[in-house]
């Protein structure tokens, strides 16, 4: 009974997390991206709590708190600040249009199912249903980074991918050691800050945060 509830909850949570990731593909304004990321992170923090509760690992509560502070409050705030500075830019012309993006995202999730199938088959974990979804989220994050032009979108895509990795880790292992988790958080924060600096420089140089302007550096 308990296990089946756990299993259902984890699959549901993973699905919601993935759904927020796919949201990125049809929204255009940067503010919507930040919101999607914020909600996704909040659900993910809840997932930590659920897994901590059913998996009897109180450490995960700490992780959930840290995770929540970092990804629900700090990073979105930074993102909003950057967004204001660049004056409500929109992802008007992605390399792949919305309809195609959604179809491709579906295919990517299918690919994730195909790839994780051997793992899911041999796994006895109650959370195994979420593993392909987490993998799918990683692909979707990567897809956002590849097809969107604005540097800010790419940062959000990266953060979503990072969330996917966190989800995969917690579903697959029921919590990696706290110190590793903290290291990963610090890593994300540092990476984010460095990217922020780059975005400011790109904006300063090209008067735009379209990454395809970087092509001009080639010659």
């Amino acid at each position, binding site marked *: 009974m308990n296990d089946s509830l756990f299993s259902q909850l984890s699959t549901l949570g993973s699905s919601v997390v993935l759904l927020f990731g796919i949201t990125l593909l049809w929204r255009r304004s940067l503010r919507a991206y930040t919101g999607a990321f914020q909600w996704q992170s909040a659900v993910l923090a809840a997932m930590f709590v659920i897994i901590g509760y059913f998996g009897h690992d109180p450490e995960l509560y700490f992780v959930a708190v840290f995770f929540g502070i970092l990804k629900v409050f700090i990073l979105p705030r930074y993102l909003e600040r950057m967004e204001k500075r660049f004056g409500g830019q929109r992802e008007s012309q992605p390399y792949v249009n919305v309809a195609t993006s959604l179809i491709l995202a579906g295919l990517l999730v299918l690919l994730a199912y195909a790839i994780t199938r051997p793992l899911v088959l041999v796994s006895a974990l109650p959370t195994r249903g979420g593993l392909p979804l987490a993998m799918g989220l990683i692909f979707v994050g*990567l897809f956002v980074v590849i097809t969107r032009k604005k540097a800010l979108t790419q940062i959000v895509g990266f953060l979503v991918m990072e969330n996917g990795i966190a989800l995969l880790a917690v579903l697959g292992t029921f919590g990696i050691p706290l110190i590793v988790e903290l290291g990963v958080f610090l890593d994300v924060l540092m990476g984010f800050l460095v990217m922020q600096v780059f975005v400011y420089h790109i904006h300063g140089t090209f008067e735009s945060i379209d990454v395809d302007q970087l092509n001009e550096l080639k010659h």
Partner: protein
Amino acid sequence: MMFLFLLMLSAYALGAVGALALGHGTLGRGLAALGAVVGAGAGFTLGVVALVSGQSLSVGVPLVLPLTGFALRLDGLGAFFLVIIGLVGASAALYGFGYSAAYEGRYSLRMMGAMLNVLLLSLSLQVLAENALTFLLTWEMVSLSAYWLVLTEHDQPGTVRAGVWYIAMTHAGFAALVAMFLLLSGGELTTSFAAMRSKSALLAPPARDAVFLLALFGFGSKAGIVPLHVWLPMAHPVAPSHVSALMSGVVIKMGIYGLVRMALDLLGGGPVWWGGVVLAIGAVSALLGVLYALMEHDLKRLLAYHSVENIGIILIGIGAGLVFHSYGLMTLAALGFIGGLYHTINHASFKGLLFLGAGSVLHATHTRNMEEMGGLIKRMPWTALFFLIGSAAISALPPLNGFASEWLVFQSLLGGFNIPVPEVAVLMPVAVGMLALTSGLAAACFVKAFGITFLALPRSPEAEHAHEAPLSMRLGMAILALACVGLGLAPFAVAPMLGGVLNGLGGLPDTRLAFTLNVSLQMPDAFAQMSPTLVASGLLLILTLVPLVMWALRVNRKLRVSDTWGCGRVGQTPRMEYTATAFAEPLRRVFAELYRPSRELTIDFHPESKYFVQSIEYKSDITPLFDRWLYDPFLRLVRFAAGQVRRLQAGSLHLYLVYVTLVLVLLLLAARWF
């Protein structure tokens, strides 16, 4: 010996640190020179002590470096090269003290002083290396420090290009050496040379052949054998002159050291074709080197081509040694190797001397173009004397050292009739012919080099106002000039010493006693003997007697100052003098097939009449065959391939991310299904 070794290390280290810390000014230059001179002196003494006592020195590695994997050991061959490094290193460093004064405020003296010490240090450690790792590491240190030194005058045209060629060639060679050592040691680079020596005989013949060919390519690229010689005439001229002396005198000799160490010592000799290939490459290098040198009017480029020639002569000796070795004619083999190694130290001393002399000329006239020199013998008598000694030595005139070693090489080649296979035996006289032609052309070339540079009237205002080199530069040249004379007069001491060095390497017998230790040098297994000492005293006698007799006969006591070859003209100018181009013209015609010269004659007539000429412009150039037929096609191929690969590099961030993602997905799929 341990003390000398540590003194050498610490002097070089202090010299390098001192130069970096103090840098510019007399003190910094002095410290760099002092460190190098003391270090080179200690290395020289260490080598001599090891050679005379016949002992070898194993250096406990923890003493030097707390890391494992390094091994140093000094044996006879290493000691001999240590002597060369010390001799040329000390002179070049001493010379560099005065020479680099002109660099003050223009180029980085810090880097130059430090890199000079690092170069000498790594060269000294190179010949002590006892395993592949140490050898490769020091090899790379030598290459890189020499690269920095070549780039000293980085803002001059051609310097950076020369540096790129040098570093590319030396790294191509380095790659071959790494492959060679991996093949020989079975993948473990810390295998000691001793272990390789015993293991190499067990290697399959194709593997041994591969090791030999890799060694020939790797060491040949450093030594400058044809066709890998192209970097020498570029890099030697643009380096500061004392660095050119070191590079030509010592750095390229590391290729010879490596080849002897590998082919004779570690591999213990091989089939006949090994020696044949070395001999052929040597003969071709010698001949082409001197032929291209003849066409050069840039004094330092001329000398650089002569390095190719002399490396060729050394390789003729070594190749002959390897051929005899494969037929078991051990005494003749030893003779060939002795000739080659003897020529190695001789070339180091006279080429070092000549580069230092060319440096003094450059220092005084600020040009390397011989056509703008002339008359320097009156203005820089000491430099002229030293340059003359060097020229006579490189032209193999007795009683100087070039003669002694070339004579030994000839003797070993003449022993070729002992080879039981006629097809091979008949090749030896061919090599003799090529060597003889080379020597003759070298003499012609140095008549040109010395005559055009130092004799006649100055051809430019710079040459007119030339000044003698300062004391430290003259001292540096004097050391090497003395070495040229000393090595030429004492082959009866040097040859047996080299016999001792080679004793036991690759199964060579002890030939120390084969050379009788009296004044004349008698050849084992050969039919000749030679006494440079007697030749010298004879020459000295004639040179003093003739003037004395003439004086006694009251012939022409008056000193006349007048125009030479006036031909009745009034107002002769230096423009009417014999030029370097004119001197080389007959040879340019004889060897036109090789040079493929291009001529361009532009005559500007007076508009009124064709009988009045306003100006004549004559341009002549020779075709650089190797650049055109070997390197240009190769470079074109590389560029084409790079251009194709470049399409991947579209510059788009998204495209790169697609690559990453595609690879990730493919790997995941591969992991799923395979």
